[in-house]
């Protein structure tokens, strides 16, 4: 699908909002501000229409809010480009790709559209990511929530009462147990990020643990001990040289050397 470079002034009455426009919610939010900006600076980016110039009516694929702002301003025409006779699927991809890179599209719209494309492409995350110019991990995270999130989690997410990161944490920590996931989700707002991270680590490592146990363990800070070694000057510079040559930090090299010596001399158990 290729967008034309030519910009046309198209009468508003010849344009219908496409049913494939992925923006379903919040379309009216901020329209007045956008109208004021257009009034002041003009329309910087033309909207995208389906079809070809000279054959109205046209379908608006990208730029719904700009179009509505023009209506508020009682403009009769809007600057537009054409994407040709694209398929319904391509129209949806265009709309989604455009909107995903803006901040305003909310979770529900994104999740619905990404999941739909994911199913269309036979669960091929890479393909969806490629089409939408998104990172695969982003697509995976939406899909993971849609596939493994509980109904409660998805509902709260759509209502904006929890965030995507917390839902993903809960999915990871509950290890496929929906009842546990819902209890953990209720606890999430009361935990600090440090505790949330430990919730995931402990939940993953102990799938048999109850939600209460996971929370209790997550609240206990881990103690990480670093032994301060005083090294002679020559060992110090040797370590520096090795670190530079191997591109490994000095601590890791020292740790490896130390554990190898302890193992060889029978002070540390050999790994199975």
């Amino acid at each position, binding site marked *: 699908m290729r967008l034309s470079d030519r910009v046309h002034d198209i009468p508003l009455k010849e344009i219908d909002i496409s049913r494939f426009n992925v923006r379903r919610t919040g379309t009216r939010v901020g329209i007045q501000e956008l109208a004021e*900006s257009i009034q*002041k*600076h*003009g329309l*910087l*980016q033309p909207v995208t229409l389906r079809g070809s110039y000279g054959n109205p009516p046209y379908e608006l694929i990208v730029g719904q809010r700009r179009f509505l702002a023009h209506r508020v301003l009682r403009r009769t025409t809007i600057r537009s480009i054409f994407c040709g006779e694209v398929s319904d699927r391509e129209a949806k991809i265009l709309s989604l790709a455009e909107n995903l890179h803006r*901040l305003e599209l909310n979770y529900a719209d994104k999740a619905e559209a990404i999941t739909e494309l994911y199913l269309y492409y036979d669960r091929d995350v890479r393909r969806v990511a490629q089409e939408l110019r998104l990172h695969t991990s982003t697509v995976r995270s939406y899909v993971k929530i849609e596939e493994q999130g509980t109904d409660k989690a998805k509902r709260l997410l759509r209502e904006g009462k929890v965030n995507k990161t917390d839902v993903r944490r809960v999915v990871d920590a509950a290890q496929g147990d929906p009842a546990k996931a819902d209890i953990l989700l209720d606890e999430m*707002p*009361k*935990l*600090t*990020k*440090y*505790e949330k991270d430990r919730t995931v680590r402990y939940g993953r490592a102990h799938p048999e643990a109850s939600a209460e146990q996971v929370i209790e363990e997550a*609240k206990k*800070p*881990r*103690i*990480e*001990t*670093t*032994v*301060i070694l*005083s090294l002679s*000057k020559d060992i110090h510079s040797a370590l520096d040289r090795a670190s530079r040559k191997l591109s490994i930090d000095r601590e890791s090299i020292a740790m490896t050397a130390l554990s190898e010596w302890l193992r060889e001399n029978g002070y540390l158990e050999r790994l199975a």
Partner: protein
Amino acid sequence: MTERPQRVGGAETRDTVIARLIANTRRRSRPDNLVQIARWIRWLEHDLGGLNAVSSTIGLSTGMLQRFLSVERLCPEVQQLVQGRKIDIINVVYYISSLGTEAQKTIAQEVLAGRLTAEDVRVLAPLIRSLPNLPLNRLISRVRESKDVKLYVAYFHVPAGSGGADRLRSRFESLVGSGEIVSLTVEDEIGSLELTRLGHEKLRQAARGRGVPLRRLVDSLVLASRNER
């Protein structure tokens, strides 16, 4: 420091602002303070007609531009600290900016005193919103206490007859402060000192300040405690 470019209206001025913004947003060390950067972003936004245009001109996402602009939501007292570069981390500014004036001031003081890191502020901000009924100081403590604890341990030789652990402890305290020593024990002539991260830094600083390796500094403290008798 100039608040606006010297020459306003010409192409050169726009180029100057773009250059300043690129220099301030692409490098690890920023030449200007965050208040100044936000002013330039606003100037360019006005000049180019929108944040999207600024974003594509200087190659920074609108989300990141919004982060820089969050400095505008700071109360005057905290903004002054940012202007003086006492607080100079964009994430600290961004997360503080969403809070009320009193919370902004308290957290800024904690950051200045080194009691909260940028990561702690990031953790604290959503907690304040989700637990609005808890006093701020309690939330700050919650964040601090929930962090994984990093301890630094030094082992050293304590010859027989070198005072006791208490005497040795007071020697170390004089360098790192009492709050930074988690424990100090002496057993079979082996001393074991557990320090917080800050304590470890202070001990290293003390060694650097005296121009000696850490080991020699520790040995000298042991010797001094022995001679105290």
